[in-house]
């Protein structure tokens, strides 16, 4: 355990090296919210709802969604594909550490780092814009936290699976871009809530992991899923998580036999 805490500490130290990156990263969050509130206050002028969403729910969808994005979809596992292709992965493989835990330690610190600063930024934004947000019941809040936890784990293994494609294919970045960026952004509901899409697409997406990582947690927050459905979605989310765990383990076992350790 000590070794993984040390990996997390070193990761944290890396973040503090680039002060300008750090500053601009935080500024980017602030600019997003300024733009978001300006746009949506214009769009929602004179309206009380948009589709099945009230205006406070729309605000909540994107504001809480932004937190989920920062917390779930930030990952260092995206580096693995490149490291496999250029052989830098070797420096990790010769050490008595678990590759999975190594990246998970880095991810956790990444998420905590984001969460810590986002908390203060969030307070500042609430004070500045005073948006009316939809808040969940205690039950929904607990279910939301469970969903968030599942999303983090599911996305971690999902991202590992994408990265491990590099053991077999030299096109590590194209698969990362398609499955790790395009599919995640569109099919998880980050651009627009999935119930704005034709129902048939929503039904198809139910059989993919994407809505479980972003859309359903938000629907739970907004209280738009009944209790029985929450249990069912949580069960589905857990199965997805287990599926990607086993798939990533299988790919790891097979992939390390294919590893070519390019370069001297």
């Amino acid at each position, binding site marked *: 355990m000590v070794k993984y805490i040390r990996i997390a500490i070193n990761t944290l130290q890396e973040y503090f090296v680039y002060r300008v990156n750090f500053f601009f990263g935080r500024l980017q969050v602030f600019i997003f919210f300024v733009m978001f509130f300006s746009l949506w206050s214009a769009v929602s002028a004179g309206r009380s709802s948009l589709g099945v969403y009230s205006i406070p729910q729309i605000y909540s969808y994107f504001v809480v969604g932004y937190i989920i994005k920062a917390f779930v979809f930030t990952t260092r596992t995206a580096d693995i594909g490149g490291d496999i292709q250029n052989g830098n992965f070797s420096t990790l493989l010769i050490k008595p550490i678990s590759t999975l835990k190594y990246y998970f330690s880095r991810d956790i610190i990444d998420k905590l780092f984001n969460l810590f600063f986002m908390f203060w930024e969030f307070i500042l934004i609430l004070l500045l814009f005073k948006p009316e947000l939809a808040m969940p019941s205690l039950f929904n809040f607990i279910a939301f936290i469970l969903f968030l936890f599942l999303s983090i784990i599911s996305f971690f293994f999902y991202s590992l699976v994408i990265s491990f494609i590099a053991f077999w294919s030299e096109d590590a970045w194209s698969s990362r871009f398609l499955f790790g960026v395009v599919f995640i952004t569109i099919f998880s509901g980050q651009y627009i809530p999935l119930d704005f899409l034709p129902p048939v697409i929503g039904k198809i997406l139910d059989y993919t992991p994407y809505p479980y990582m972003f859309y359903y947690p938000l629907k739970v927050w907004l209280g738009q899923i009944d209790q029985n459905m929450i249990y069912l979605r949580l069960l589905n989310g857990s199965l997805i998580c287990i599926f990607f765990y086993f798939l990533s383990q299988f790919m790891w076992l097979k992939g*390390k036999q294919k*590893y070519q350790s390019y370069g001297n």
Partner: protein
Amino acid sequence: MSTIQVKNLTRTFQIFDKKPGLGASIKSIFYRPQRTVHAVENVSFEIKQGELVGFIGPNGAGKTTTLKCLSGLLYPSSGNISVLGFKPSDRKYEYLNQIGFVMGQKNQLWWDIPPQETFLLNKAIYNISDTDYQKRLDFFIKTLDIGDIISVQTKKLSLGQRMKCEFVAALLHNPKVLFLDEPTIGLDVIAAQKIRDFVKEINQQFKTTVILTSHNMNDVKELCKRVILIDQGRIKFDGLLSNLTKKFAELKILKFVFENKISKTDIKKFGEIVDGDGYSYTIKVSKEKYLSVASKILTTLPVTDLNIEDTPIEDVIRQVYTDKN
């Protein structure tokens, strides 16, 4: 019992040869004929504990591939490897805890933070006690003279400084087996010498088994009694470095100094001139004839000094590489 046992090791890679030009690139989207390359073929050897063995050969000979198979980075295509009683490709923690690997062209130090942070991480990874860590770090700092650089960001260090720190990171846990892949590549003569002295010291002091690959013959000459010469994936020689010269060198080097100026034509008839300014000459003569040639020159020309040497190891290896023997 040997620390390292390798029996009939073969490692193949699938290679795709792309013809030059845009047309060939477009064609390669649809069709990529593969061929199998034997990076290492039927290689067998054994290394005892505390030995320092040089693995030499031209580029692409299979040296690094062998080292990667020994460390568990690559799975062998066939054959058996045992290092410290373990099968390296199993990558068991008990095994990885006992090996160190310095790759001359790969960084294991964290790039953005000082080397001391990587050292602390390795302390945690290898479960090194506080006392051992401090004792070893002090030893490395003193031996490698790195006291003032371990707190500087890795990326701001020179290549030589970084290599020294790479050694520390690879050796903090006092590995029983150390793999060194081109450890002095790109280093100036002083830094390279420092690294060589250091390897010698840890080999003697801790009885660390060391396998070294290097194109720098000074590394091999100064450090390795035994060498394994590999070419095109096959072992061409395995034995004492001194025997390599005996086995492969066909020539002896004779160096003469004369009282008067002697013309090149007078010397040419005795052997191939390597160097000469009239007052001194260096010539190459076959092993069978060198005694009679030396005697003839001594009796016919005004010699003031004579020196007989073996062919430099670099030349011997070059001969083996180019298959002239």
